């Protein structure tokens, strides 16, 4: 009986063990590697800060800053699009219609974003579908150049990659809010906008944070979209890391990657402290909220 209990416990801890051993431990090891020395093609254990110094004093720091800004811009635009959709689906749409629309948002998210980025290079190009339509309806007289190989194109690629999935945590948290709270607010004389700002929005914050973190992490670490849609020489931290790998500077890649990961974990820590992780899951975890 004891043995059975022990076996059960071990089985239940399997997923925790999996993530700890194959994600947490490797991430920790990556931080260690970032201090190692490079001698010819080999890595030698050492404690060198030179890669961090390289990174923080060189032009790569600007790349980090720009990645940060682009990721924030993309995330905010995603949120502005996703929140109203999630709100409408949770509050005003029939449940069956809401489920169908949520599903329709999932499917393009599942198609590899590299493939979708290739399509965008055609759609946004000088002779692409969008320029052609703009010229045809007479909005512009010649092709618009800044659509492709620009911040704009990178933003389009990121938003279409991460916005669809943001709708889920938002929808879950908005749908989980008790209707009667809004009604009470209305009965007390609040206008719809006041009710939204003082009741609905604060109560949906766990979902908003989950959505923001999900999109921000994705956009910040993005490595393929800047290469495909940013054009030659367009550097964000994600493809900076992969190009450092291409020249075999592993410790520097590890250092950059450690900085990025640390930034993300800091975000996660803030989230963890500010909200109960389970609260954005609302109804899903209703059976175990205590």
């Amino acid at each position, binding site marked *: 009986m004891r043995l059975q209990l022990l076996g059960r416990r071990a*089985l*239940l801890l*399997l*997923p*925790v063990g*999996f*993530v700890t051993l194959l*994600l*947490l431990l*490797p*991430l920790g*090891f*990556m931080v260690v590697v970032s201090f190692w020395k490079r001698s010819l093609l080999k890595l030698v254990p050492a404690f060198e800060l030179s890669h961090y110094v390289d990174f923080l004093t060189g032009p790569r720091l600007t790349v980090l800053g720009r990645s940060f800004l682009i990721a924030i811009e993309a995330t905010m635009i995603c949120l502005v699009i996703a929140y*109203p959709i999630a709100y*409408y689906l949770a509050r*005003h749409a029939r449940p069956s219609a809401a489920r169908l629309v949520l*599903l*329709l948002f*999932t499917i*393009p998210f*599942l*198609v*590899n974003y*590299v*493939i979708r*980025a*290739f*399509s965008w290079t*055609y*759609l946004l190009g000088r002779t692409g*579908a969008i320029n052609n339509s703009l010229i045809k309806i007479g909005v512009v007289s010649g092709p618009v150049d800044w659509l492709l190989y620009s911040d704009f194109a990178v933003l389009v690629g990121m938003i*279409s990659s991460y916005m669809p999935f943001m709708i*889920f945590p938002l929808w879950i948290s908005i749908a989980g809010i008790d209707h009667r709270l809004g009604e009470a607010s209305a009965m007390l004389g609040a206008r719809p906008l006041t009710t939204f700002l003082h009741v609905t929005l604060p109560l949906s914050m766990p979902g908003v944070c989950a959505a923001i*973190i*999900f999109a921000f992490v994705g956009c*910040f*670490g*993005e*490595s*393929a979209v800047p290469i495909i849609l940013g054009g030659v020489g367009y550097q964000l931290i*994600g493809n900076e*890391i992969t190009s450092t*790998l291409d020249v075999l500077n*592993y410790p520097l*890649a*590890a250092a950059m*990657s450690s900085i*990025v*990961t640390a930034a*993300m974990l800091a975000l*996660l820590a803030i989230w*963890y402290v500010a909200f*109960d*992780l*389970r609260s954005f*899951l609302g*109804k899903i*975890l209703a*059976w*175990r909220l205590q």
Partner: protein
Amino acid sequence: MSWRSGLVWSTIGAVLAGLYLPLVPPLFFSLMPETPAEPAPTLRWYLEMWRNPLLTGAVVTSVEAAVMVALVTPLLALLAAISIRELKMPRLILGLMLLPLLVPGVSTGLAAAFFFKQIGIAPSLGTIVVVQILWALPFALLVVLTAMSTFDPVLTEAAHMSGAGRWRAFRDIELPLIWPGASGAATFSFILSFNETTRTALVQGPLNTVQTYIWSTYKQIGLSPTLYALMTLLILLTVGLSAIAVALRRQ
């Protein structure tokens, strides 16, 4: 329908159209002949791509990896969901399970590559499967948790009262009811595995999956009609599988 909800629905429709738009161009390019002299839509690229051993090898690797990911991930997700419900520190466990979503793909892949090299595991199908499971696990967990939330714990209590042990109650009562969730998680994991590029590329060694094949061919020679044909098939497969999964759930 009021004009307001009409406006909202057409906005949602426009956003969806924008998301589905990139799924169309590969189809057009895959039907283009090599020279304008040839008859216009041609299916030759769809036939020609199978003559490339690199690509067929990549297809095999992709399918193998996706099947393994689809088998293991839902199981881990199910165990994780139960451990969140039954063990102490559910918050910590949930946080840990969602962690792969919060670490950029490049970092996950890079860390795994260093780690495997250090402990002497050569890049192989196994290493590919590991990073893809990490990527699919949070999504699978969310799907399983959603299914479990619709399960009424009273049923388990009833089973206990009728003399069923913990395992029996789980196997005979709860598992059949949350099974659709588990199979949904399997489909989801399969699709996520099949569409993963960044993490896989860093731990694949000499192997290639379909996605990393597309990525490395793009970086070395650029896009070709054959590559577009491959992309079209992948888009159709993803959309088709999703549709099947939905249809099965409706039943």
